[in-house]
Structures are given as structure tokens and as C-alpha cells.
């Protein structure tokens, strides 16, 4: 009995190994026939007019989870294909974009054009050998290069090589300090300009019944705790405490350079001051206690619509009619929210946020560069995306006479209530070419206030050319991040007394090898040429 059972196991394994061998064999042949179309056809004079297939891996469109429709239902793709004489095979990355890209790579389906939402990922894949150096190629497309601001082009360089072009343009100064001036007037207070005044206003907003309903149901401030757990700087874009930290000139999980040396704010004494201030706010009960369960911007915005909070950090567009309508429907009234300059910290820092850094990148795979003709066609397509005046309205605004109109060269968006936006939401996956200051695209109904808000926010942005270049490469990085996030939260919630700050710094140095990380950062900054 026993013997036969092992025999059957062995038999199975024998079958198995046979199949493994067969499978890996066919895997190799698969990689060879991936691009027969380009070389297989006879070479003719009008080579460039030949229709070719271009695959495009899109991680930068603005509706990544909305699938693209079939060609017949996609007039924008039809236009692109006709204008460029290509078959555009676009794959959306979506939330699992790294997994999908890895699968395409391992199964010999490397896309011709690949986009990355952040520079760190692009650099990682470049190091693994996916992306091509584009310096030589780009030199032949001066129009394309001229269309990008030099400050956006600079981050495309890595180890002295240009590895892509700027993919989508970020809008600066999105979030600003908002204050409920209806409450301010009611309580006869003035706009706060420093931390002490800020705390006083928050206390009054919490305890002096600013909405006059005789209930203790208002809060001075609301903040959030994003999923990644950072109290300060994080990719999830947390709002609230991040701006308190900036008031003190620092930011958790942020790396900077001062006097030619790398500075890690996590151990900066000013961070301790900021933590003390946040702890004072929480102890004074002026922060809405829900902040620990608010983990996305939407839940934070809801607090504004409810009208039970007096100071918060939010999007610059909140006094657009649509948002005012929401405040009215939800909270019963439309308080006069106003954006103010960030309060000036004790060390003279008046910072709202960091400047926009060109994160997203569009590059070519090394495979494409082996084929000069295909490279040419791919580059012409990229140039078309970013420079074609005729294509721009369609790429950015959508479908003519459905989502936008043109009258005498002037473009205007059609009101969204006249069509079903869900049906054509996919169009935003082409809109990554839109300019960040395109007033048609953003279509403000209350432009004087909204534009002034953005202007205000933009005047308090801090230079940001160091931190986005940092990539944590050591396996301990995530554990270190976990420790920092956990300790910061313990400090502000009082679970760990701030008198243990020195112990925390020492632990970071000894146990979590912060010095090693700093050395790695220095090397990276030298590679990028921003540190001598």
C-alpha cells in the first residue's frame, strides 16, 4: 500500500518535470516572435506611411479604473490612429499597475511606450533595464522638448541620462488654509497669523458656540490620518497636520538639503516643537476626534460640507458653486469660507506645501530603440500628443459637441448635466496632456475667487528638488518608516511622552541605521547631480 502510493507520487512528478521542460522551451520561442511585423515586410520607399502598431502602457490617465471602450466607440483613439497612421494598443495600468507591467515584461509583451506615475518607479525599472536612454533621440525633436518647461525636464535626468519626458503636469498649491469667516465675525476674532493666534481661534471655534445652536458640537480644526500612516508628508496627500509641520519649517518623512548637507526632518529638533504644538491642539480638544479614522480626502471634505469645523486645509476650489451647493444641502447654510495665508511659525517659516515636482514620466522601452523606424514613429506620436494644437482640445476636453464646443477658435466645456459623464469618463485617460493652467479644462464658475486662491497658495510653496529624488533602497526602509509613523502618533496622542524624543532619535540612529540611509541618499543626490 505504502509503496504504491509513493510510486504514484513519483509518476506524477515525472509527468510534471516533462511538462516543465516543455513549457520553458515554448516560453523561449514566444519571446522571439514578438515583433515580426516590423522586419517581416518588404522595405519600400514610403516606409513612414506604413501603418504600424504602437503599444502604450498608460499609468497617468486620470481615470485609471475606467476601462477604455472598443475602437468604434472611441472617437479620440480613432483620431489619434488616423493622424499618426498607427494602431494604438493602450493598456491601462490601474491600481495594480506594477503587477500588470511585471506580467507584460515576463511574458515578452514589453510595451513600446511606458509611463510611470512617479519618478522613483521609473528609476527602479530603468535600473532593471526596461527603459532606454533618450538623449540622442530627443535631440531630434526640438519642438517636443521646447513644449516642456526646463524645470519639468530636469527631473527626467537620472545618472546624467535622460530617461523620459514629463508625462502629466501637476497643479501647484492645490491645498490651502481655509477659515470660516462667518464664525470669525460672530466671535469677533481676527484671522490668525501665528501658532498662538491659531490655537486661540481654534479654541474659540470649539468652545464658544460659533454656530449659535447652543450645542457643543463644533471643532476648531480637522485633520486626517492617511492609509500609509504618515502624520506628515506622504504620497496619499494628507491634509491638516502636514501644514502644521510646515509652519515649523519641517515635515515628517521628508528629506532636504541644507548648506550642502542632507537633512532628515524626522530627527530635527523643530519637528519636536511641531509635535508639541499638535499635542497641545489635541489636548485642548480642538481637533475633531474623527481625524484618526479619516483616511481619505473625501471624508475630510465632508467635514467642511457638514459645517461643524472652523479651520481646515482643503482644495483651492471649495468656493466654486457646486461645493457651496453641497454645503447648503448638507450643513444647511453656506458659511463664508476664505483662504488665508499660512500662519507664520516661531522660526519665521511661512510654508504651505512643497512645490510640484515633475514625478510622472513617459519613456521608451529598450526594445523599441533597436528598431530605428519604430523609434521614429513612436517619437512622432509622443510629439503629437504634447504639441499638436489640433489634437489638444480633443485629448483634453473630450468629444466635440458632446463635452465641449468650439466657436471661432474658442473652446468651452459643455455643462456636465447635459450628458451622462459615466459613459465617457474614459476620455480622461487621454487628458494627461492637459496644461496645469488650462482655464478651459478647469472651467471655474467663480474664477476671481478661485484663481486668487491658487495665486495665494502658490506664493507659499517651498522648493522641492531634493525629497522626490530620494529612493529608499534598504530592506529596513519600510520598518524605519513604520517606526517613525508610529512614534510620531504616540507623541501627539500622549502615549509616549515627548521627553523621550532623544531616545527616539537614538533608536533611529542605532537600531534603524539612519546614517546608512542618509549615506544612500547622498549617493543618489550625487548621481542626480543635485549634490556636489
Amino acid at each position, binding site marked *: 500500500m505504502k509503496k*504504491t*502510493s*509513493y*510510486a*504514484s*507520487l513519483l509518476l*506524477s512528478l515525472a509527468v510534471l518535470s516533462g511538462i516543465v521542460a516543455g*513549457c520553458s522551451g*515554448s*516560453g523561449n520561442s*514566444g519571446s522571439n516572435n514578438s515583433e515580426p511585423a516590423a522586419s517581416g515586410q518588404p522595405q519600400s520607399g514610403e516606409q513612414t506611411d506604413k501603418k504600424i502598431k504602437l503599444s502604450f502602457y498608460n499609468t*497617468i*490617465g*486620470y*481615470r*485609471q*479604473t*475606467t*476601462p*477604455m*471602450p*472598443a475602437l468604434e466607440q472611441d472617437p479620440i483613439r480613432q483620431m489619434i490612429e488616423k493622424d499618426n497612421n498607427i494602431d494604438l494598443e493602450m*493598456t491601462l*495600468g*490601474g*491600481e*495594480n*499597475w506594477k*503587477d*500588470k507591467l*511585471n*506580467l507584460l515584461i*515576463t*511574458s515578452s509583451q514589453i510595451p513600446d511606450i511606458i509611463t510611470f*506615475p512617479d519618478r522613483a518607479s521609473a528609476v527602479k525599472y530603468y535600473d532593471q533595464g526596461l527603459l532606454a536612454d533618450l538623449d540622442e533621440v530627443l535631440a531630434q525633436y526640438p519642438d517636443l522638448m521646447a513644449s516642456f518647461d526646463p524645470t519639468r525636464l530636469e527631473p527626467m535626468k537620472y545618472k546624467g541620462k535622460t530617461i523620459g519626458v514629463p508625462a*502629466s503636469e*501637476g*497643479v501647484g498649491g*492645490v*491645498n490651502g488654509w481655509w477659515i470660516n469667516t462667518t464664525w470669525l465675525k460672530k466671535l469677533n476674532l481676527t484671522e490668525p497669523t501665528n501658532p498662538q493666534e491659531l490655537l486661540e481661534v481654534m479654541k474659540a471655534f470649539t468652545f464658544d458656540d460659533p454656530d449659535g445652536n447652543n450645542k457643543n458640537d463644533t471643532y476648531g480644526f480637522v485633520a486626517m490620518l492617511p492609509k500609509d500612516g504618515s502624520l506628515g508628508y506622504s*504620497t496619499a*496627500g494628507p491634509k491638516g497636520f502636514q501644514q502644521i509641520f510646515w509652519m515649523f519649517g519641517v515635515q515628517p518623512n521628508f528629506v532636504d538639503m541644507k548648506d550642502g548637507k542632507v537633512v532628515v526632518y524626522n530627527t530635527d529638533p523643530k519637528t519636536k516643537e511641531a509635535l508639541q504644538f499638535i499635542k497641545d491642539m489635541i489636548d485642548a480638544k480642538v481637533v475633531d476626534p474623527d481625524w484618526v479614522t479619516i483616511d*481619505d*480626502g*473625501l471624508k475630510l*471634505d*465632508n467635514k467642511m*460640507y*457638514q459645517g461643524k469645523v472652523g479651520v481646515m486645509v482643503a*482644495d483651492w476650489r471649495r468656493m466654486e458653486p457646486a461645493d457651496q451647493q*453641497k454645503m447648503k*444641502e448638507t450643513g444647511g447654510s453656506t458659511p463664508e469660507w476664505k483662504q488665508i495665508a499660512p500662519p507664520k511659525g516661531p522660526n519665521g517659516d511661512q510654508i504651505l506645501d512643497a512645490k510640484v515636482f515633475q514625478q*510622472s514620466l513617459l519613456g521608451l522601452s529598450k526594445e523599441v530603440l533597436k528598431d530605428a523606424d519604430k523609434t521614429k514613429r513612436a517619437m512622432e506620436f509622443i510629439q503629437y500628443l504634447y504639441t499638436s494644437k489640433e489634437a489638444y482640445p480633443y485629448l483634453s476636453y473630450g468629444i466635440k459637441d458632446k463635452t465641449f464646443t468650439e466657436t471661432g477658435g474658442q473652446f468651452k466645456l459643455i455643462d456636465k448635466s447635459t450628458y*451622462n459623464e*459615466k*459613459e465617457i*469618463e474614459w476620455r*480622461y485617460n487621454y487628458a494627461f496632456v492637459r496644461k*496645469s493652467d488650462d482655464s478651459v479644462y*478647469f472651467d471655474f464658475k467663480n474664477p476671481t475667487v478661485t484663481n486668487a486662491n491658487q495665486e495665494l497658495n502658490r506664493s507659499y510653496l517651498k522648493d522641492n528638488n531634493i525629497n522626490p529624488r530620494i529612493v529608499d533602497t534598504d530592506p529596513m526602509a519600510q520598518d524605519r518608516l513604520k517606526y517613525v509613523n508610529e512614534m510620531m502618533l504616540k507623541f501627539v496622542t500622549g502615549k509616549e511622552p515627548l521627553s523621550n524624543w532623544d531616545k527616539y532619535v537614538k533608536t533611529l540612529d542605532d537600531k534603524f541605521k539612519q546614517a546608512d540611509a542618509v549615506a544612500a541618499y547622498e549617493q543618489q543626490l550625487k548621481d542626480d547631480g543635485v549634490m556636489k
Partner: protein
Amino acid sequence: MEQVTIWNRLGKGLNYTLLTLLAATCVIPFLYVISVSLTPISEVIRKDGLVLIPSHITWTAYEEIMQGGRLFDAYKVTIFRVVVGTLLNMLFTVTMALPLSRKAMPGRSGFLMFVVFTMLFSGGMIPSYLIVKEVGLLNSEWALIIPGLVNAFYLMIVKSFFEQLPEAIDEAARIDGAGEISILVRIILPLSMPVIATIGLFYAVWHWNSYFDALLYINSPENQPVQLFLRQILLASVAISGDAAEAANSVNPVSVQMASVVVTTLPIVAVYPFIQKHFTKGVLVGSVKG
């Protein structure tokens, strides 16, 4: 004797009470999901999401997700994979479970170990994708069915139920000269209706709920199942580009999110009551006698 009945009654009362309480807590989330889907968004926000009974009903969320016909395309794909997939699952599972339940069959424990081993060790996503591609299933709805043809766990359950059937019935049929297949169809299957119904339900629900295989293997929008549709609505807020100015615009209101939970959940939930009749006692004896 008197005492016993009192205890019995008390126990019975307690049992009914506890079950009712548990059921009540299980209904709350559905009440919540349905109520939120029918409530104007401003009311949901005002009440911090706590709407268990809507004060007035609005169907706009449902109208919004029904538009464009994508939901119906997705239903087609899902129904195909649930029906065809479950049938194939059952066919393969039962045909494997039958031999594996024969305790005297030489090599049986080796085969069983061979099956259990796959529950423990797995190569992960990359090789599975490569196999699906090599077999030529990429972008086909069969990629949602073939790679999950037999679930080792369910196979073990069916096999264990088959083992418990009285061997005497089996032997009697054999003496009558019935072939293995006809024993399976005429005797074993009818006797095993509870487990067949259970595992069928498990497979069907698994098919209904899976999305990750579709996420990896299916590119064309017309082959995407309802769970992907649901995820697209729930996760629209995930800003991959990290572009703060764009992220907020793509979020679906919570009422739309809950409406899509309702339309993607109710159909499969409704299947269960129909399957329950197979769990009634006495199936075994009834069929043997009949």
C-alpha cells in the same frame, strides 16, 4: 420528567433568541448598504454615513450605474462564468472525488497528497499568467474558468462525503453488475445532494466574487465581470498619478458606491434560498428507500 421539559423549553427559547439576535446583526449591514444607496448624498454626509432607514428615497444612484449598459455586459460575462464555470467545476470535482474516495484503491494516498500539496505551495501570479498565456487563454472568458477548474479544498470535502456513504449500497449495486459510472450517477450523486448543492454553491459564489483573475487576464472591456465593474466604482478614488487636482473629481459618491454593491450582490445572495431544500434531513434514507 417534568424537569427535563422545562430545561428543554428554556434551551429552546435561548436557542431561538440567540439565533434571532445573530440574524439581526447580520441584517444591519445590508440595511445600511441599501439605505445609503437610496438616500440623497447630502443626507448621508450630514448623518456621517449612519442611515439605516432613508427619510426619503431617491433612485439617482441606480440610474447612474445602469446608464451606458456596461453593467449589463458585465452581468453577461459573470453569468457565463458562474453557470459554465460551476458546471465544469462540478464535473471535474466529482469525477476526481469518486476514485479518491475508494479507500482500497492502490496509490490513493499518494494522489491525495498530490492534491493537498497544491493547497500549500503555489508559484504565485507570474507563472500562472505565463501558463494562461501559453495555453492561449489570454483575453478570453475561458481564462476565468479553466485555471480554477478544481479547487483542492472543495475536492477534499466532496471526497470525504463520498467516503461516508454506506459501502453496502455500493457493493450491492456492484453485485447487480452496475458499472462505476452508473453507480455514480444512479446512486452516489442522488445520495450526495447536500454536498453537491453545497459545493456547487461554493463554486458559484467563488466565480461570482472573483475579480483578480479578470484584472490580470482580461483586457477588453466587453469581457469584464461585474466584480471589476464594482471595483472600478469603489476604487475610483485611488489616485495612481497622485495628482491632487484630478483625484477628487474621479470619486464616486458613496450612494453610487453602495448602489453598485447592491446590484452586484443581490443576484447571488438570492440563489441560496433555492439551494437550501437540499439540506433537509432525511434525504439519504428517502432516496435509498425510493
